[in-house]
């Protein structure tokens, strides 16, 4: 207790001020969280606590040093103002916009601290104590009711014990004060959460460092805990005469420490006339809830961000919450207070019998999975409730049944809604349903039902009437308050279910809900989601009114921004506010889809009703004026931009002094297309997205969960779907249980998704049982290929090196540190599977680039003849042989390769002797010779040296359609007259390329005008593919991320053009895997496999979607015994995750153990 000495000189001051001040600070802080109303600027020093640090990672550093701020405030209390100005100059310039209050005005409560200060002088305590003297409370009477401690009940404590001997300390009926040692003495042992540090505990400069350090350390040892719970009983003269028994003081101490309750008017009911140590005292405690209790507890309320380096902090927060909530539960039990409705209503019987037990368990197993139960609240609204413990499987089954029947009702018999006439297309039934759903999610009238339904995690309590002189005034209106037994939060405001969310997730799996049967019927097949959202834009087009509520809420949203920016944008917003509420819609989409959105929106709107702007590229307009502009005419403003632009604007904004109009505009609606682009909540894109100000938020994605459950969280955060948008909450209730293999986690996810996610899949059925979309069949085949000898060697060497490397790292336990390195090795392996040139240096001349004269390497037979006669005049016989070879090229179809003794599939001529071999055989032989250091020679005549790139391939176009094919070699008239043409072997192929080429050849034989899409994720491989296609004289078009928008669009439109020739579109999986509409093709080749099947499926669905009339053939090329097999395994498991989350309505029952098993492996392996 060395601190005590430090404090002695100033003890009185602190003691006096501490209580009230804390309250005020806390309530002021609370107002930020719930903040609803702008308040006038104020010069009060308390402003300094109003940092906006609640939720963004970037603000963490500020979090770590709240101390100075708090301390400055203390100093201010003592009249020292200068220092704080130095520390945080920006605060002074800041308009008061931030400090807002709904409950009571901030300044009021601030002022209230002064009378308390005056009081303090009267009672110099021996020891710094936390007191709850009635006098102090009285000082605050007359204030807003929220500040007034409210009677909660009273209870008897039978076995308090005396600590003193003698008479005169106390007699029955005397008032007792309940005291705690000053929290300073608990140090960090007190559960002070991350933000709890701001609680401005009486403190001085010397201690600051130490405490801060201690806080960042782990929990103090348990030994200090016992001392912590001491609750002293003192008489009105301030003498301690007794203590509360341990079982009561354990939680009362917490309640006092957390400033939740006051005990005023507590009395001694019975005591011996002469006290002695340990004598039994019977005390009646009257409990009053303090106003500060109703501010959100530090952690749970604002979901302070948890970054990687802050993991330790989180457990501390959790402990705070846990202790708070268990203390409150104990209190409610003690005063026999039961919820009127909401959580725990129905198990009140349970509470009577086993609540002690339950409380204990809650305390003991804080991280444990909470069982959920559905209860009916209000008019059939189902509410999810946490049971204390034991909930049988049978009960769980019931829940599922309930939920599934409801979900089905939702999905199938959802009402339809017609779009207004400014929307020119006709919607399908399921699209109308979607419109209805989205409309109801956006408009508040429809959700009126939800307004009366309480937030599922809260329960309602009524304040008991306070007996006044033993008489209970029954006429007094019942006052209600709300308690969240999960987070320990208390609130006076009705916790509405989904109170903030306007919007949702549109899970248009394979985004192909497109068919629009309109005026131009089948020709105009667009994207379904575009159409649905366009209909939504048309339907809910009226600007939202400016609600003071909303402005404040938006302020809270901008908290991620740096302070000065917040205020700047705020200032701008204020200027505009008077004119009208937000009406514009912002659509954020991947770059490749911008023009598609633009077209579809235009197409679906009556002329002049929609003003669509693509906000992309260099000349981006200032968006400041858009709302005012749109006021003038009747059109709705829609801005389309890309994630990239948004992220760069955001980083511009974050730079000091930067401004970005896109973040200043308050949007009526923000739509994220392919919303999984912001799946990592710490990514720049995600943060940019969170910083947008909007009334309504939509996320459209085919894959709400890409890799892990936390992918979902970033969507929820964007949607501001409380409480799940709070990372700590999501983490404790979903991620951690999930990691603990608890199937309940998945159930919670299902519940969340059920309320905010509309899932439209092409194999879903409508209410008449028909599939909502009829699509032609899709045939997926996997071609397992074998490496050639040389490729195997290259692959093996890379694999062995990688494996050795990994094993070493693994042995040293450095895998985690070298994760990126390992990923790079894996990447290299994946390239090696595709083509050796992607991993080796191609300095030997045979490279990816054709060295020949023409781009497809075709050479003329006549030229070759001439060459021979010029060079080999001396050896007449040889020349004659060569000539006969060339002359007989088209007839000698079934010549045998001297090496494999088989009929040559792809004969190669070895110049100058003109002997022939299979291409593979000769190349493999030449490679062996080179390996051995021998000069490669012709195997037949030993003439040498022979170079690989000198070989001449003999290509025969077979099949009856040859005349058509010849037209493909448009420029090479010379060779195309013959069925046989020669080609220089100046290009190294690979197993996969060969497989592709063979498939395309076969395809061309069957269908001379085929259209095929080739996907690969490596653009370098795309380049190789394009060379291979050139050599096959196939027309190809390329679409990848490196091309600008114009080029991409050109490639697509050229590919789609109707021409009498085969066409191949080679697409990079990442750039073209989403959104594109490529239904003109019906063959898909997947050259490599991506880590999750969802991405691949989405790519395939570019082709397999509404508008496709033919069967779609998909071929995956996989090389046997390579890393690709592993990837497929992982793919399967990932599919399992997503399916599990989506399992929802169709099956009742629990997560099957198999899929859980799958998940286990993922998390243990990777």
């Amino acid at each position, binding site marked *: 207790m060395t601190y005590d000495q430090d404090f002695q000189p100033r003890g009185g001051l602190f003691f006096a001020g501490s209580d009230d001040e804390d309250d005020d600070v806390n309530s002021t802080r609370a107002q930020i969280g719930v903040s609803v109303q702008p308040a006038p600027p104020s010069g009060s020093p308390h402003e300094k606590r109003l940092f906006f640090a609640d939720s963004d990672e970037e603000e963490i550093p500020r979090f770590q040093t709240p101390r100075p701020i708090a301390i400055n405030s203390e100093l201010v209390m003592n009249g020292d103002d200068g220092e704080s100005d130095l520390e945080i100059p920006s605060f002074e310039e800041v308009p008061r916009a931030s400090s807002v209050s709904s409950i009571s005005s901030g300044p009021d409560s601030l002022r209230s601290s002064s009378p308390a200060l005056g009081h303090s002088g009267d009672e110099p305590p021996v020891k710094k104590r936390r007191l709850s003297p009635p006098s102090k409370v009285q000082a605050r009477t007359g204030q807003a009711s929220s500040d007034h401690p409210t009677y909660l009940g009273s209870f008897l404590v039978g076995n308090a014990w005396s600590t003193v001997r003698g008479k005169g300390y106390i007699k029955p009926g005397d008032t007792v004060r309940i005291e705690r040692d000053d929290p300073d003495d608990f140090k960090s042992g007190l559960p002070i959460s991350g933000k709890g540090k701001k609680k401005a505990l009486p403190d001085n400069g010397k201690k600051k460092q130490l405490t801060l350090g201690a806080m960042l350390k782990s929990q103090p040892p348990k030994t200090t805990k016992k001392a912590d719970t001491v609750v002293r009983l003192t008489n009105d003269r301030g003498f301690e005469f007794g203590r509360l028994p341990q079982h009561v003081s354990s939680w009362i101490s917490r309640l006092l420490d957390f400033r939740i309750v006051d005990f005023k008017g507590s009395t001694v009911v019975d005591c011996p006339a002469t006290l002695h140590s340990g004598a039994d005292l019977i005390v009646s405690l009257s409990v009053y809830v303090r106003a500060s209790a109703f501010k959100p507890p530090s952690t749970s309320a604002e979901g302070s961000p948890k970054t990687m380096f802050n993991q330790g902090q989180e457990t501390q927060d959790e402990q705070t919450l846990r202790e708070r909530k268990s203390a409150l539960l104990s209190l409610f039990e003690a005063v026999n207070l039961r919820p009127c409705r909401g959580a725990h209503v129905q198990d009140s019987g349970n509470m009577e019998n086993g609540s002690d037990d339950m409380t204990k368990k809650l305390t003991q197993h804080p991280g444990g999975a909470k069982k959920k139960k559905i209860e009916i609240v209000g008019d059939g609204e189902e509410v999810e409730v946490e049971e204390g413990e034991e909930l049988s499987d049978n009960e769980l089954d019931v829940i599922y049944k309930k939920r599934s029947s409801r979900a089905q009702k939702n999905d199938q018999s959802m009402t339809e809604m017609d779009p207004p006439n400014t929307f020119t297309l006709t919607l399908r039934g399921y699209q109308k349903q979607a419109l209805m759903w989205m409309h109801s999610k956006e408009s508040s009238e429809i959700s009126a039902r939800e307004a009366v339904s309480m937030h599922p995690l809260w329960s309602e309590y009524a304040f008991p009437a306070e007996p006044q002189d033993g008489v209970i005034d029954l006429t007094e209106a019942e006052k209600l308050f709300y308690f969240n037994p999960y987070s320990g939060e208390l609130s006076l405001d009705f916790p509405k279910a989904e109170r903030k969310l306007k919007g949702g997730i549109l899970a248009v799996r394979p985004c192909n809900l497109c068919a629009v049967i309109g005026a131009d019927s089948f020709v105009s097949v667009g994207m379904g989601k575009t159409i649905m959202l366009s209909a939504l834009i048309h339907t809910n087009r009226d600007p939202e009114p400016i609600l003071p509520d909303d402005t404040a809420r938006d302020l809270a949203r901008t908290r991620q921004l740096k302070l000065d920016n917040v205020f700047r944008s705020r200032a701008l917003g204020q200027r505009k506010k008077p004119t009208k509420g937000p009406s514009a819609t912002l659509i954020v989409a991947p770059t490749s889809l911008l023009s598609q959105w633009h077209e579809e929106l235009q197409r679906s709107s009556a002329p002049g009703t929609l003003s669509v702007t693509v906000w992309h590229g260099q000349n981006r307009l200032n968006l400041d004026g858009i709302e005012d502009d749109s006021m003038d005419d009747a059109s709705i403003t829609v801005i389309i931009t890309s994630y990239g632009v948004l992220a760069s604007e955001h980083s511009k904004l974050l730079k000091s002094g930067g401004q970005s109009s896109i973040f200043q505009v308050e949007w009526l609606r923000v739509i994220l297309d392919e919303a999984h682009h912001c799946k990592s909540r710490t990514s720049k894109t995600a943060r940019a997205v969170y910083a947008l100000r909007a009334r309504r938020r939509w996320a459209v994605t085919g894959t709400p969960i890409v890799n892990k459950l936390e992918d979902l969280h970033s969507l929820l955060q964007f949607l501001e779907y409380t409480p799940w948008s709070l990372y700590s909450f999501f983490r404790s209730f979903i991620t951690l249980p999930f990691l603990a293999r608890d199937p309940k986690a998945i159930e919670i996810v299902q519940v969340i998704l059920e309320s905010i996610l509309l899932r439209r899949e092409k194999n879903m059925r409508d209410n008449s049982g028909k599939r909502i979309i009829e699509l032609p069949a899709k045939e997926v085949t996997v071609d397992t290929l074998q490496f050639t000898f040389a490729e195997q060697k290259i692959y093996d060497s890379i694999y062995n090196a990688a494996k050795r490397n990994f094993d070493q790292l693994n042995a040293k336990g450095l895998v985690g540190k070298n994760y990126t390195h390992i990923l790079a090795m894996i990447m290299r392996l994946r390239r090696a599977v595709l083509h050796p040139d992607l991993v080796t240096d191609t300095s030997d001349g045979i490279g990816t680039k054709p060295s020949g004269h023409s781009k497809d390497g075709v050479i003329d037979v006549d030229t070759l003849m001439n060459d021979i006669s010029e060079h080999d005049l001396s050896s007449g016989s040889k020349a004659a042989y060569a000539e006969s070879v060339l002359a007989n090229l088209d007839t000698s179809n079934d010549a045998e390769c001297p090496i494999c003794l088989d009929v040559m599939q792809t004969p190669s001529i070895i110049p100058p002797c003109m002997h022939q071999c299979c291409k593979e055989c000769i190349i493999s032989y030449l490679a062996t010779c080179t390996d051995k250091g021998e000069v490669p020679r012709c195997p037949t005549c*030993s003439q040498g040296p022979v170079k690989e790139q000198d070989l001449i391939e003999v290509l025969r176009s077979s099949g009856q359609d040859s005349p058509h094919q010849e037209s493909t070699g448009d420029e090479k008239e010379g060779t195309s007259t013959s069925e046989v043409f020669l080609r220089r072997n100046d290009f190294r192929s690979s197993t996969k390329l060969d497989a592709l080429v063979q498939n395309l050849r076969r395809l061309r034989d069957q269908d001379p005008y085929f259209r095929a899409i080739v996907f690969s994720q490596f653009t370098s491989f795309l380049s190789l593919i394009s060379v291979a296609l050139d050599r096959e004289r196939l027309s190809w078009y390329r679409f990848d991320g490196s091309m600008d928008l114009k080029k991409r669009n050109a490639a697509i439109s050229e590919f789609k053009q109707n021409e009498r020739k085969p066409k191949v579109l080679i697409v990079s999986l990442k750039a073209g895997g989403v959104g594109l509409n490529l239904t003109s093709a019906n063959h898909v080749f997947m050259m490599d496999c991506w880590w999750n099947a969802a991405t691949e499926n989405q790519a395939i669905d570019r082709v397999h979607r509404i508008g496709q009339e033919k069967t779609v053939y998909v071929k995956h090329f996989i090389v046997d015994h390579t890393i690709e097999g592993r990837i497929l395994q992982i793919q399967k498991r990932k599919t399992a995750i997503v399916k599990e989350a989506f399992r929802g309505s169709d099956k009742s029952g629990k997560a099957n153990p198999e899929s859980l098993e799958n998940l286990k492996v993922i998390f243990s392996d990777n």
Partner: protein
Amino acid sequence: MALPKRIIKETERLVADPAPGITAAPHEDNLRYFDVTIQGPDGSPFQQGVFHLELFLPEEYPMSPPKVRFLTKIYHPNIDKLGRICLDILKDKWSPALQIRTVLLSIQALLSAPNPDDPLATDVAKHYKEDEKDAQRVSKEWTEKYASN
């Protein structure tokens, strides 16, 4: 590992259309291992002899030459006591266009035309160089002694 198509084809052809004076049959348990007999060519000291050889096709075949060895003792300057054969196509002059049949024919030809200038058995080569007649006599004796059955 499966037997390459080429080996199967060669074996079939050796059985179906054997070269004169040469037999080659693969072992049942190892199709890359052949029992070979070569008749001594007429007009050579090895006439009337039937020489047993073993032939093994290595993994790399036909990119690498087969391994061939005489099992029957033979007095020949290019074949040593262990039966090893000094023949260029079995070494650096190997080409994948050569086959088992061509290899065995080459060995048969080697019996007709010993090449003492590129010896493997130096004593035999010396003998052939100094007194070819006597050396041929020894060869003939050895043939009768070891290669007639």
